[in-house]
C-alpha cells in the first residue's frame, strides 16, 4: 500500500504541487509569525542583557513603574557622587562607576530636524571610561572627553549620515549642545536599540545636561574574583543601608524582561492571534485541497476497492500520502516562514520598530511547524479519506461518476443555533460592556459563519449570478453553475478571503471609531487655540512655555505634565496642571465637585476610577510617587470619562513639591480674542522653531497628531492582514487550479463543441469573481458586526464615537472581486490552454 501511495503522489505532479503548496503556505505563515515574534522579544530583552555591570546601585523607588527605564518618570531621583567612593570601599567590589542616563536627547539631522525614531526614545548617557563597566563598545573614533564632544550609536550615525569628525547639534532637556562627533559605538551585546537613538557625553557634561552636577542615575559595580553577584549585592545592601536599590545583573535583566513582556503583550497577542488566523486559514487550505484531491481520485480509489483493497487500506493510502506531503510541505514552509519573518522585520523597520536581533528558527518553531504541517494535513486528509473509503467499488465501473454534494441540513441547523447563541452573547456583552463575553461571541459567530458559509453561498451566487447570463451569455451561465455546483467548495475557497476581510473590516471599524473618538474628544475638551508638544510624546524643556507666555496676544498658557503614582497603593497615571489655568486649556466636564476645587492639597479623580476605588468627593487618599515622596490629598471632584484624561489630576504645586521633573508634556495656548491671530501665530512659530523637538499645533493639527499613532497601528495591522489576504488569494488560485484539473474533460468537451479559448478563460474568471465576491461580502458583513460590537464594548476605554468606514468597505468588496480576477489568471490560462484531444481522452 505504501508503494501505491508514493506512486500516486509522484504520478500526479500538478496535484502534488498544489496540495503541497497549501501545506507550505500554512506552515510558512505560522513559522514566519513565530520567528518574528521571537526576534521581537529578543530585541527588547537584548537591550538590557547588554548591561556590563555585575551589580548596580540605584536610588530606591517606592514602586516599580514597570516601564523598564525608558519612561519619563516624573519623579526620578539621583545618587550623590560621594556614594561611589563608599561603594568602592565595600568588601568584594573590584570597581565601581557612577553612570548617567536620561531621555530627551536627540541628535539633529543635517537639516536641523529631529530624526524620526518612530516613537523610540532618544537617550543620553555618560561615557563610562572603565571598559569592564561600559555597556557600550566603540566602533569608530574615540570616547567623548569634553563638553564639546559626543559619541552616538552606529545605527543613528548611519541613519543620519554622520561620520566621526562631523559637527552635530544635540538637543537635550536643557540647552542645546554644539559638539564634534568623536566616535560611534555599539550598545549591549547585539548593538540593538530597537530604533532608539543614544548619545554619549563625558560624565561631567552628562551630569550637567541631564541630571545635576555631581549626581548619578546609577552606580555600576564589578565583583572581585571569587565573589558571586548575589553575595556582592548582599554586601552592598548591608553596607549602604536600605535607602538604595541594589540589584544583580541577572535580577535586573529578569525584572526588565518581565516588565517588557507586559508592555509587549499587545504586539505579542496580536501576532499570536495572527498566527492563529494563519493556522486556521492554512488548515482550511489543506483540508480543502485534500477533499478535492480525494474527490478527483474517487474512480481510482474505487478501482483499488474493486481489486480487493479494504476500506482501511484505502484510508491508509490517503493518510500516508498526507503525512509525506505534510512533512515535505512543512520543511519547505519553514524556509518560507523564515523569508516571511524577514519581510515582517523589514516592514516593522519602516514603522520605526527596528528589530536588531537576528532571525533564528528556534526548536519550538520547528516543532510547531512540523506538528502543524503533518497533524493538520493528517486531520485534513482524514475526513476525505474516510469518505473515499466509502466509495463503492462499482464507482470504478461507472464512466460518468458524478459526486452529488451531500445535503446541507445538519450544517444549516447547527450553524443557525451557534449563530443565534453567539449573536446573543455578542449583543449582551456589548451592551453590558463585558469584553470576555464579546470575545466568546465573536469567536462563536466566526465559527457559525464558517459552518453556514456553504448554505449562504447558494442564494448569494444565485443573486449575483443572476446577471451573469445577461452579461456573458452561456459563458456566464456556466460560470454561475460552476460556482453553485458544490457550495461546500465555493465556501471553502472563499473562506480564507472571508476571514481576512472580516478582520480587516473589524479593525477598520475599530480604527475609524478610535479616530472619530479622538476628534470628538478634542472638539469637546480642547479649549486652547494651540497645543505645543514633542514629536514622540516626549517631555520637553519648560523654556518653551516661558517664551510663549511673553508673546503679545497670548492670553493664557497652561502647562501639562504627566507621571505615575500610587494612589492608596494602586498605580496609575496622573496629569498635573496649574489650577488657575487648566480651565482656559481644557473644558473638563465634572460629574461631581468643582474643577476649581483643584489645589495644592487636593486631587481630581475620573468617575470610573472613583467607582473602582470607592472614592467620593471629600475622601482623602495617599498619593505616592516613585521617589518615595508622598502626600495626603483630598478628593475635590470627579470628572467624566470622555474627557481624554487619565485616572487622576493633581495641581502643579503638588507635582513640584513631590520632586517631579521640570519637563512639560503639553503646553496649551489660548489667544487674546482681540489680538491678530495671524501675527500671534507667526510669533508662536518663531519661538517653536527654535526647539526642533516640539511642534505647534492648532486643534486640527492636534487631532491629526493624536490620530497618527492610531493610523500607524492600523497600517501595521492592515499590512499584516494584507498578508493573510495574499495567502487567501493563493488559496483561491489553488482551489481553482484543482477545479480546472477536475473539469478537464468538461472543458475539453466545451472546446470540442466550439467554445474558444477566450470564452473558456472568461468562464473560469467569472466563477472566481463570483466566489471571491462572496467571500468578501460575507467577510465584510461579519467584520462589521464584530467591529461594531468591539467598539461598543470599548466605550469606556475612550471609544466614545462609532464610525463605519463605508468607502473602505465598498473598496474591500471591489478588491474582493479583483482578487478573484487575479487568482483566476493562472487557472484560466490553464483552462484555455487545454489540449482538446488530451482533455476528452483524459481519464
Amino acid at each position, binding site marked *: 500500500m505504501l508503494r501505491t501511495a508514493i506512486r500516486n503522489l509522484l504520478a500526479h505532479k500538478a496535484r502534488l504541487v498544489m496540495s503541497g503548496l497549501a501545506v507550505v503556505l500554512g506552515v510558512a505563515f505560522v513559522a514566519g509569525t513565530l520567528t518574528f515574534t521571537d526576534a521581537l522579544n529578543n530585541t527588547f530583552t537584548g537591550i538590557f542583557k547588554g548591561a556590563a555591570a555585575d551589580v548596580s546601585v540605584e536610588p530606591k523607588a517606592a514602586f516599580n513603574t514597570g516601564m523598564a527605564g525608558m519612561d519619563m518618570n516624573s519623579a526620578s531621583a539621583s545618587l550623590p557622587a560621594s556614594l561611589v567612593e563608599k561603594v568602592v570601599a565595600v568588601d568584594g567590589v573590584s570597581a565601581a562607576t557612577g553612570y548617567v542616563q536620561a531621555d530627551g536627547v536627540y541628535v539633529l539631522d543635517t537639516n536641523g530636524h529631529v530624526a524620526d525614531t518612530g516613537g523610540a526614545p532618544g537617550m543620553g548617557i555618560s561615557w563610562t571610561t572603565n571598559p569592564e563597566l561600559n555597556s557600550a563598545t566603540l566602533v569608530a573614533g574615540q570616547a567623548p572627553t569634553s563638553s564639546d564632544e559626543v559619541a552616538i550609536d552606529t545605527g543613528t550615525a548611519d541613519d543620519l549620515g554622520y561620520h566621526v569628525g562631523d559637527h552635530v547639534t544635540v538637543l537635550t532637556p536643557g540647552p542645546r549642545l554644539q559638539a564634534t562627533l568623536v566616535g560611534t559605538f555599539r550598545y549591549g551585546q547585539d548593538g540593538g536599540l530597537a530604533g532608539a537613538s543614544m548619545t554619549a557625553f563625558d560624565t561631567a557634561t552628562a551630569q550637567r545636561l541631564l541630571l545635576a552636577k555631581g549626581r548619578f542615575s546609577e552606580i555600576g559595580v564589578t565583583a572581585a574574583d571569587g565573589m558571586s553577584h548575589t553575595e556582592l549585592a548582599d554586601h552592598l545592601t548591608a553596607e549602604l543601608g536600605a535607602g538604595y536599590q541594589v540589584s544583580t545583573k541577572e535580577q535586573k535583566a529578569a525584572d526588565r524582561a518581565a516588565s517588557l513582556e507586559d508592555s509587549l503583550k499587545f504586539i505579542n497577542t496580536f501576532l499570536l492571534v495572527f498566527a492563529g488566523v494563519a493556522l486556521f486559514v492554512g488548515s482550511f487550505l489543506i483540508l480543502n485541497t485534500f477533499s478535492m484531491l480525494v474527490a478527483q481520485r474517487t474512480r481510482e480509489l474505487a478501482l483499488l476497492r474493486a481489486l480487493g483493497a479494504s476500506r482501511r487500506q484505502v484510508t491508509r493510502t490517503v493518510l500516508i500520502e498526507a503525512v509525506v506531503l505534510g512533512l515535505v510541505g512543512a520543511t519547505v514552509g519553514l524556509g518560507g516562514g523564515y523569508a516571511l519573518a524577514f519581510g515582517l522585520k523589514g516592514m516593522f523597520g519602516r514603522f520605526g520598530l527596528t528589530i536588531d536581533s537576528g532571525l533564528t528558527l528556534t526548536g519550538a518553531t520547528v516543532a510547531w511547524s512540523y506538528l502543524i504541517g503533518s497533524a493538520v494535513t493528517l486531520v485534513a486528509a482524514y475526513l476525505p479519506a474516510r469518505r473515499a473509503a466509502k466509495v463503492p467499488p462499482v464507482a470504478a465501473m461507472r464512466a460518468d461518476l458524478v459526486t452529488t454534494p451531500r445535503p446541507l441540513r445538519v450544517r444549516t441547523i447547527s450553524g443557525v443555533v451557534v449563530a443565534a447563541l453567539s449573536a446573543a452573547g455578542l449583543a449582551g456583552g456589548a451592551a453590558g460592556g463585558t469584553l470576555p463575553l464579546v470575545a466568546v461571541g465573536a469567536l462563536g459567530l466566526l465559527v457559525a459563519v464558517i459552518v453556514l458559509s456553504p448554505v449562504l453561498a447558494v442564494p448569494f451566487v444565485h443573486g449575483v449570478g443572476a446577471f451573469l447570463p445577461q452579461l456573458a451569455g452561456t459563458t456566464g451561465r456556466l460560470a454561475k453553475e460552476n460556482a453553485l455546483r458544490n457550495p461546500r467548495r465555493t465556501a471553502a475557497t472563499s473562506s480564507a478571503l472571508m476571514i481576512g476581510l472580516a478582520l480587516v473590516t473589524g479593525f477598520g471599524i475599530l480604527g475609524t471609531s478610535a479616530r472619530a473618538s479622538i476628534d470628538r474628544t478634542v472638539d469637546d475638551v480642547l479649549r486652547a487655540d494651540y497645543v505645543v508638544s514633542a514629536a514622540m510624546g516626549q517631555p520637553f524643556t519648560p523654556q518653551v512655555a516661558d517664551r510663549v507666555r511673553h508673546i503679545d496676544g497670548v492670553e493664557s498658557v497652561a502647562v501639562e505634565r504627566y507621571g505615575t503614582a500610587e494612589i492608596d497603593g494602586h498605580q496609575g497615571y496622573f496629569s498635573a496642571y496649574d489650577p488657575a489655568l487648566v480651565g482656559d486649556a481644557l473644558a473638563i466636564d465634572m460629574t461631581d465637585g468643582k474643577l476649581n476645587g483643584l489645589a495644592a492639597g487636593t486631587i481630581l479623580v475620573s468617575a470610573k476610577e472613583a467607582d473602582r476605588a470607592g472614592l467620593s468627593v471629600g475622601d482623602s487618599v495617599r498619593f505616592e510617587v516613585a521617589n518615595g515622596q508622598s502626600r495626603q490629598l483630598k478628593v475635590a471632584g470627579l470628572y467624566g470619562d470622555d474627557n481624554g484624561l487619565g485616572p487622576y489630576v493633581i495641581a502643579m504645586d503638588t507635582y513640584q513639591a513631590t520632586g517631579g521633573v521640570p519637563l512639560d508634556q503639553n503646553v496649551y495656548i489660548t489667544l487674546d480674542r482681540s489680538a491678530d491671530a495671524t501675527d500671534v501665530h507667526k510669533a508662536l512659530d518663531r519661538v517653536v522653531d527654535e526647539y526642533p523637538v516640539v511642534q505647534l499645533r492648532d486643534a486640527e493639527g492636534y487631532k491629526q497628531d493624536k490620530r497618527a499613532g492610531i493610523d500607524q497601528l492600523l497600517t501595521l495591522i492592515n499590512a499584516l492582514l494584507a498578508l493573510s489576504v495574499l495567502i487567501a488569494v493563493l488559496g483561491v488560485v489553488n482551489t481553482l487550479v484543482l477545479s480546472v484539473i477536475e473539469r478537464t474533460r468538461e472543458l475539453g468537451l466545451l472546446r470540442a*463543441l466550439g467554445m474558444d479559448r477566450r470564452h473558456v478563460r472568461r468562464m473560469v474568471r467569472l466563477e472566481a469573481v463570483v466566489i471571491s465576491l462572496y467571500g468578501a461580502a460575507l467577510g465584510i458583513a461579519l467584520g462589521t458586526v464584530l467591529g461594531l460590537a468591539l467598539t461598543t464594548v470599548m466605550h469606556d476605554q475612550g471609544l466614545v464615537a462609532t464610525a463605519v468606514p463605508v468607502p473602505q468597505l465598498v473598496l474591500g468588496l471591489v478588491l474582493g472581486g479583483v482578487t478573484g480576477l487575479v487568482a483566476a489568471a493562472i487557472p484560466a490560462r490553464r483552462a484555455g490552454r487545454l489540449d482538446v484531444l488530451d482533455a476528452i481522452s483524459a481519464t
Partner: protein
Amino acid sequence: MSTLERNDRTHLSTGTTTAATGDGRPAARSEALTKVYGDGEARVTALDGVSVEFHPGQFTAIMGPSGSGKSTLMHVMAGLDAPTSGQSWIGDVELSGLGDKGLTRLRRDRIGFIFQAFNLIPTLSALENITLPMDIAGRKPGQAWLDQVIDTVGLRPRLSHRPAELSGGQQQRVACARALASRPDIVFADEPTGNLDSRTGAEILAFLQSSARTLGQTIVMVTHDPVAAAYADRVVFLADGRIVDEIDAPTADRVLERMKAFDRTEPTTTRGSMGGHDRDGAA
C-alpha cells in the same frame, strides 16, 4: 445501392466507390492523411495515407481492430488534431489552413460530436446541453427543427433534468440530439453505443440511421460492433492506419465475416492482409 465496384488496391475508397447523393460534392473528405506519433523506438504510424470521402446524407461506419487508427482518423478529420501530412476538408473548407480560432468555429458551426462517454456538461439541463453549441455561437436554434429533434430522440419529458438524473442511454440520446440540433454538415460519433446495453444501443443506432435517411444528416461512426455497423449505409475497414476494405449496405453477418478474415491474417504484414481482402462477396 448501385455501383459496387470497389477495392482497387491503392486507393481503396476514393470518390468513385460509393453512391453519392446530391450533387456529388462530399460532406467531408481526406487526401493521403498521415499521422505519426512519437519518435525513434516509440514511433507509431496511426494513419498511413488515408484518403476517404463521406457523402451528404450517408451514414458511414468505421471499423477495424483496436489501435488501427479509427479514433485518430476521426479526430484529424474533425479538426481536433492536426495530421502529420495530407489534407482534409469539411465541405470545401480545407482544415490545415485554419488556426485554433478557425477550427473552433468550424467545430462549433459545422460539426456535431458524440463521444463514448462524458458527453454532457453536468451543470446544464438536458435542453441546455442540446442547445449548447448554438448558445456558444450566440445563435438561436430553429424552434421547429429543435422540436423535431427532441421528439425524434423522445426526450421531451426529460428536458429539464440534469445529466446525473438521466440514464446512460438517455444521456447518449441527449448527446445525439445535441449533435443534430445545430444542423452540422457532418456528425462524428466515436463508439456512441460502446457503453450501452444492446437494446438502448439499438435505439440510438436506429435514431442515427433515421437521421441520415429522413433528415439527410451525414454521419460517421466508429464502432467495434458488427451489429451496430449494420445500421450504416457503408462500412470502411481500417487496419494499421490504412483503409483496407469497405462494404456497402452491410449486414451484421457480412461485417462479422469480414472481420474474421482480418483476424486470420492479422499477424502477417499489413500488405499481406490487404491483399487478402480485396474481394468482397457481396452483391
